[in-house]
């Protein structure tokens, strides 16, 4: 009985949120709080990373870039997972909001992948003496960036946004199947061609003091994603519905 009621409430909530005006209002209220949370967690995480954690005994202060590089890399991959789930829902049930949300994931994922590559490059200069090293993880991230760009480009190439979203969702799924294989193949290629290179991260044991800033930065990237996703989806919705009644009456507040 309780379960049934909960299910009913959930369905009602889902249905309400699925309608464009309610989602618009929801996103407008929630997103600023997520941005605030992002600012606070980033500030605290960066404080811990820059002032509390002792310098790395091998790499000195340059290793501190890890607290941006690693959480951003994780988040860039996490976003692909979220986008895949949304794309499946969009393809099966054709819910417009999930189409919009899935397509809003791609630019955020691409931006974070780009940050990951940039910080990796910055880190690589003192470490390897070069701005770019064909390290397995960096190469995988580069391919991921191309996948994100492909999804964005494909979506943008259609005038009918709903059609574009569903076609790009097929590409999202193809990428989801392929990404683990790409990751594995690049790893394999790397070990065969280079033998053991110095890794940016991993293997070496972590000092316990490194964990708190890392956790705070992981939380901060999640909040960043949530906030950016809601804002992007809200704008996309507004753009698609710009000639609809609800935009005129509820957003622009003009009489039709």
């Amino acid at each position, binding site marked *: 009985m309780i379960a049934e009621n909960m299910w009913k409430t959930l369905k009602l909530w889902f249905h309400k949120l699925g309608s464009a005006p309610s989602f618009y209002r929801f996103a407008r209220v929630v997103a600023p709080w997520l941005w605030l949370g992002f600012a606070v967690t980033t500030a605290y995480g960066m404080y811990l990373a820059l002032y509390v954690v002792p310098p790395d005994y091998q790499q000195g202060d340059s290793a501190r870039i890890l607290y941006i590089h690693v959480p951003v890399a994780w988040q860039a991959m996490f976003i692909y997972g979220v986008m895949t789930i949304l794309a499946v829902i969009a393809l099966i049930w054709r819910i417009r909001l999930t189409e919009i949300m899935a397509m809003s994931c791609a630019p955020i994922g691409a931006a974070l992948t780009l940050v990951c590559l940039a910080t990796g490059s910055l880190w690589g200069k003192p470490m390897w003496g070069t701005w770019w090293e064909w390290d397995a993880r960096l190469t995988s991230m580069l*391919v*991921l960036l*191309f*996948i994100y*760009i*492909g999804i964005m*480009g*494909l979506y943008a*190439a*259609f005038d*009918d946004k709903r*059609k574009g979203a*569903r*076609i*790009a969702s*097929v*590409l999202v*799924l*193809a*990428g989801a*199947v*392929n990404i683990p*294989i*790409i990751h*594995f*193949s*690049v790893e*394999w*290629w790397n070990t*065969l061609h280079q033998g053991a290179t110095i890794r940016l991260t991993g293997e070496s044991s972590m000092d316990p003091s490194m964990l708190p800033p890392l956790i705070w930065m992981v939380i901060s990237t999640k909040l960043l994603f949530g906030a950016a996703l809601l804002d992007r989806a809200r704008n996309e919705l507004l753009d698609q519905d710009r000639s609809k009644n609800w935009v005129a009456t509820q957003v622009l507040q003009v009489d039709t």
Partner: protein
Amino acid sequence: MNESRTRAASALFRRDMKLAFRRLGESLLPLFFLFTVIVLIPLGVGPGPNLLARMAPGMVWVAALLASLLALEHLFRPDLEDGTLEQWFVGEQSVYARVLSRLFSHWLISGLPVIVFAPLAAEMLHLPHHALGTLIVSLVLGTPALSLLGGLAAALTLSTRGASVLLAILIFPLIVPLVIFATGAVSMAADGLDPDAHLGLLAAFTILSLTLAPIGIAAALRMNLE
């Protein structure tokens, strides 16, 4: 039902072949393109046999990829424009069988000639003779996946503006594992090592593409007809 499916697919295949032969010059362009790439490389990096031999596996494969890419634009687009593509979806017909048939035609035009002329290309790039067998096996196992994944990219971009650039961007990340496994196998063989592990992974990748790509292609084609 099953019989009509094979009949439809084989009729399409025969028509595609007929059309390809009617425009033989156009059909062979990818092959000529392959050789322009093969000739340009020594002109660019110098004719030193050692350097060329090291680059040969990758170069033959990149050339094969470019040849395949060149033919992809004509994979579904003419059918979209003359209305024969929408006929695939009329009634309860098997789109899957026709997709496979069309991809097989594409492979015959863009993949098979590359395999046939691979010894010539390999010789021009000074690939060690004992690696030639592996090169050909890698092409036999890998070029079908090139057609399958290229077909997916072509189907996704079918009704878009600026399809050809987009197509190239979409296909690149999809075929990364393919290029790594295939060129890895040939490089191993050239260095006198056992390429079987690479070839096995290559075959697995092609089989996976064969099971999943046609489903994606059929779905993408239909969505593009909207």
